[in-house]
């Protein structure tokens, strides 16, 4: 069944590609083997075939031949069908091969393979041999990536359940998505939140349940000049200006803090060092310092010292 279908679709493509004029459905039925005898059954099968070709990105055109009064017909314009000429130098082909591996087993892996196949068919030898041992990877573990990429690509609004940080219940959000961004290994979607009527950023890993489309393709418009990367960067925040804290760190401990230290001096008390480090967010920094337990004592500032003590008391609460 599947073999016959492949043969029929192949003949159909070749027929329409070589046609110099629009062919009516009846002419196509004459030319392409494999369609059923009944005209109604043919029409149904032909409709499905057209859809499948369009899904593959084959530009099937409809039109009427000049000076004819026939019903509208079909053809595939070679110009619209063909990949334009592309030639790559060996170093360019090598980075292309590397790029195709980036998505391996992630969401767009199949698309990357398909693209490489077409480029090879255009005569490009995209083999990655230049950089042994280098394995770049993009991962799309979040289930929401697929539908959100489709929504961005096709400009469709979506809705999804979202568990915002610090909240214990999820909310349903309505979004006109503008772009998806990976920042430091996490995927985000940027767009216009329909309820809040403002730009919002959502982290894909906090989405719960299915992402559903709420409108047809082409109904989302991205405001001109939108920079989706900048939107996520701003949202993620660089934080307030840095402050300096003074810590006493046990000798031989606290490598993670010493690495970023402004200064390290032996403390008056033997077995300890006095270390100065810059930080910006008191909340996050106090959590980080608490994780060093008895190896780190915060001297200054007082608010940081109190925050660390509060954290540690929380462990015992």
């Amino acid at each position, binding site marked *: 069944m599947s073999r016959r279908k492949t*043969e029929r679709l192949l003949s159909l493509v070749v027929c329409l590609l070589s046609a110099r004029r629009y062919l009516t459905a009846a002419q196509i039925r004459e030319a392409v083997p494999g369609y059923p005898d009944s005209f109604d059954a043919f029409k149904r099968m032909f409709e499905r075939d057209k859809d499948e070709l369009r899904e593959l990105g084959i530009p099937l055109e409809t039109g009427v031949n000049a000076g004819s009064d026939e019903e509208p017909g079909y053809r595939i314009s070679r110009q619209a069908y063909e990949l334009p000429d592309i030639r790559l130098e060996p170093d360019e082909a*090598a*980075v292309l091969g590397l*790029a195709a591996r980036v998505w391996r087993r992630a969401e767009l892996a199949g698309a990357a393979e398909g693209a490489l196949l077409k480029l090879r068919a255009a005569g490009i030898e995209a083999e990655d041999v230049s950089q042994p041992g280098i394995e770049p990877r993009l991962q799309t573990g979040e289930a929401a990536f697929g539908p959100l990429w489709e929504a961005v690509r096709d400009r469709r609004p979506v809705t999804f359940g979202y568990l915002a940080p610090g909240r214990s219940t999820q909310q349903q959000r309505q979004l006109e998505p503008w772009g998806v961004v990976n920042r430091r290994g996490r995927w985000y979607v940027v767009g216009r939140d329909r309820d809040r009527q403002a730009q919002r950023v959502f982290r894909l890993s906090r989405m719960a349940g299915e992402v559903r489309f709420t409108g047809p393709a082409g109904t989302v418009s991205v405001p001109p000049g939108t920079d989706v990367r900048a939107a996520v960067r701003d949202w993620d925040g660089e934080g307030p200006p840095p402050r300096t804290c003074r810590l006493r760190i046990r000798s031989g401990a606290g490598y993670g803090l010493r690495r970023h230290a402004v200064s390290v001096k032996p403390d008056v008390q033997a077995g300890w060092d006095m270390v100065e480090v810059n930080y910006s967010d008191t909340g996050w920094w106090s*959590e980080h310092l608490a994780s060093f337990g008895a190896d780190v004592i915060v001297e200054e500032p007082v608010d940081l010292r109190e925050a660390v003590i509060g954290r540690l008391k929380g462990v015992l609460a």
Partner: protein
Amino acid sequence: MTADQADATARRGRGRPPGSGRQTGTARAQAGQAATDRPTATDRLQRLLALVPYVVSRNVVGMAETAAAFGITERELVDDLNMLWCVELRSPDPYCPIDLSYEGGEIMVSEAEAMDRPLRLGVDEACALLVALRMLAELPSIGNGSALSRTIAKLEAAAGSAASPSAQVAVQVDHVTGQSVAVQVADALSRGRRVHIAYYVPGRDEATERDVDPMRLLLVERSSYLEGWCRRANAVRVFRLDRILSIQVLDVAAEVPAEAEQVDVDGGLFRPSPQDVRVVLELAATGRWVADYYPCELVEQLADGRTRITLRTPDTQWVRRLALRLGEDGKVISPPDLAAQICDDATAALANYA
């Protein structure tokens, strides 16, 4: 040949099929694996449409090479070539638009009207490659910025309008950490040299020194890794680049033992093993990030809005540090001796402030 093909050949009225039909040993050997995931009719159509231009652009090309490029067996390739050769249009006059031969292990297409160029790139295809290329362009260790920007420009031109949605997918690699180390690792890999590293282990808050024979540089968006044969552990180890405190490329050839096995990057770098300790934590809403951040075996939503997670780890030292960090935001429930140890850690730390 199957009866179908024999019939089609006869209809064409040609005396001889395009190939001898002889199967090579390799083709037979591979045929067994071929049927495992059957492509759909449209998958196969895409392949057939690419096959003709693939051969045309190379004039003559070997069967084995072609099968490898398309990820199919030679037997499947023969079937594809036969299907192409058998295409026949019946009207206005019957004719066969594709003529090809594959005798002597080499394929030649002598006639392929209208099919000698591949189909344009689709949006997904163009975007997958462009997003990946732009990500690579951000990684200094790839070291081929000029080739990357030329390739991006050529691909954008060839893809035309299919390239535009790619501007709406961006990958921002962490620039701050690990990139200069990555450049050195790439250098050691390309010259086959051993490296000496000082490595910080945050779970234990300690720095260690070791010699490593690099196997691969794994550039993952979040953080990148050096995979290599560790001369200290005498085993394959994976090191996060942003935790490599210093690195020296040694004037010694790297010697990776034959038994060294690569880590399956795509299956997840860190996979729990059955010998690991099972740790259960209960997280308040403010501590829920832990569930996002660490690979959990189980995530359960509790009735009171808290989240219970279960994870497996070979080493619980980092869990103790995590628990101190979490404070009231998350508690270790099990194992009980770990929970007790954490209380002791907090008590000792608080004693410093007494």
